[in-house]
């Protein structure tokens, strides 16, 4: 090795992790065992992966719809990055659902070829944003809940869910920080931004109720040490929301509404609009690969 350049010894010419080349990435599921844990009904695990996967998939699509519409170029990149993080989580979860199901459906089949009633996400994920403040309020609720959930999933008895949780915690931590930063910035900003941020949290935060209502599948998997009872996340969620509201000079969070059955496939017309857009290309080109 030559030492003509003092910095040369510090750069790894032998590997491909030089910066700016898009390399050095790792597979979060590399070497993780894929067997379904003992005492777990595979159908429950499939349903659970669809719930968490569809939340991420549909939320990601809504974030993608902000691309070219965000108030600033820099924030557009931030929203696209968050959408891509969630899409990555959705891919892993839908792939897991397809493998456990065992009927040959892969992530694409599950994302692009299911009917609306087969989706298992909560209503919060599909809601159309009235403005940027609504998006930020929704992202704060979603990422606060999801960070608490993923954090607990890291100790799941299912190694795949534990690995997805470990990967997702780092992502959701940033999503929550981004959303909280904007809620504070707008809430503690001008009279106009405060009024609009307040309208957004009043309109969006009650939808969080559905996130914390335990579904039978969640309760059975929580008892088996594989899933998480969402009711146990409520304290952390309430603490975070209360603190963000306080710093943002907003009134305390409004009471939560009862859920609308999204976990059982009950969705509004907004999902039809989302799926029409999301599935159009795949349905027009059956078996297409890209």
């Amino acid at each position: 090795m030559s030492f003509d350049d003092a910095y040369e010894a510090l750069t790894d010419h032998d590997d491909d992790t030089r910066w700016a080349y898009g390399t050095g990435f790792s597979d979060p599921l590399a070497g993780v065992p894929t067997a379904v844990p003992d005492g777990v009904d595979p159908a429950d695990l499939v349903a659970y992966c669809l719930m968490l996967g569809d939340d991420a998939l549909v939320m990601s699509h809504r974030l993608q719809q902000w691309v070219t519409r965000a108030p600033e170029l820099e924030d557009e990149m931030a929203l696209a990055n968050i959408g891509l993080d969630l899409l990555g989580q959705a891919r892993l979860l839908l792939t897991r659902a397809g493998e456990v199901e065992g009927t040959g459906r892969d992530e694409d089949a599950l994302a692009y070829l299911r009917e609306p009633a087969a989706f298992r996400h909560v209503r919060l994920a599909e809601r159309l944003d009235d403005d940027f403040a609504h998006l930020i309020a929704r992202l704060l609720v979603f990422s606060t809940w999801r960070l608490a959930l993923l954090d607990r999933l890291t100790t799941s008895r299912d190694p795949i869910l534990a690995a997805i949780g470990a990967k997702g915690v780092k992502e959701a931590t940033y999503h929550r920080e981004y959303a909280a930063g904007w809620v504070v910035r707008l809430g503690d900003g001008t009279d106009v931004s405060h009024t609009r941020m307040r309208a957004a949290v009043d309109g969006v935060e009650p939808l969080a109720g559905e996130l914390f209502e335990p579904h039978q599948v969640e309760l059975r998997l929580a008892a088996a040490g594989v899933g998480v009872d969402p009711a146990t996340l409520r304290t952390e969620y309430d603490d975070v929301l209360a603190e963000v509201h306080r710093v943002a000079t907003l009134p305390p969070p409004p009471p939560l509404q009862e859920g609308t059955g999204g976990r059982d496939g009950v969705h509004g017309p907004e999902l039809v609009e989302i799926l029409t857009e999301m599935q159009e290309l795949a349905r027009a080109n059956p078996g297409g690969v890209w």
Partner: protein
Amino acid sequence: MSDDIKHEWPLFEVFVRAKRGLNHVHVGSLRAADHEMALHHARDLYTRRNEGVSIWVVRSDDVVSSGPDDKDAFFAPSGDKVYRHPTYYSIPDSVPHI
């Protein structure tokens, strides 16, 4: 007061360190409302592909730079001072470890 509101965020310069031991390198610029937002934006714009382990952001109008007109006065005088380079000097054989 409302006349003072700028409708464009200030510009920041972004420096990223690729890995421990290397210098921060200027990678580009961005707009943000304040330093904290600039840091977040820098993370989103310039470190999406494992480029860095550390980020600096600096307000562009805080950067003081030499101008093109200063070029001769600033840099030309060093052109003929060859004795400022270590290779100008011959090393005696009795000096070890060089």
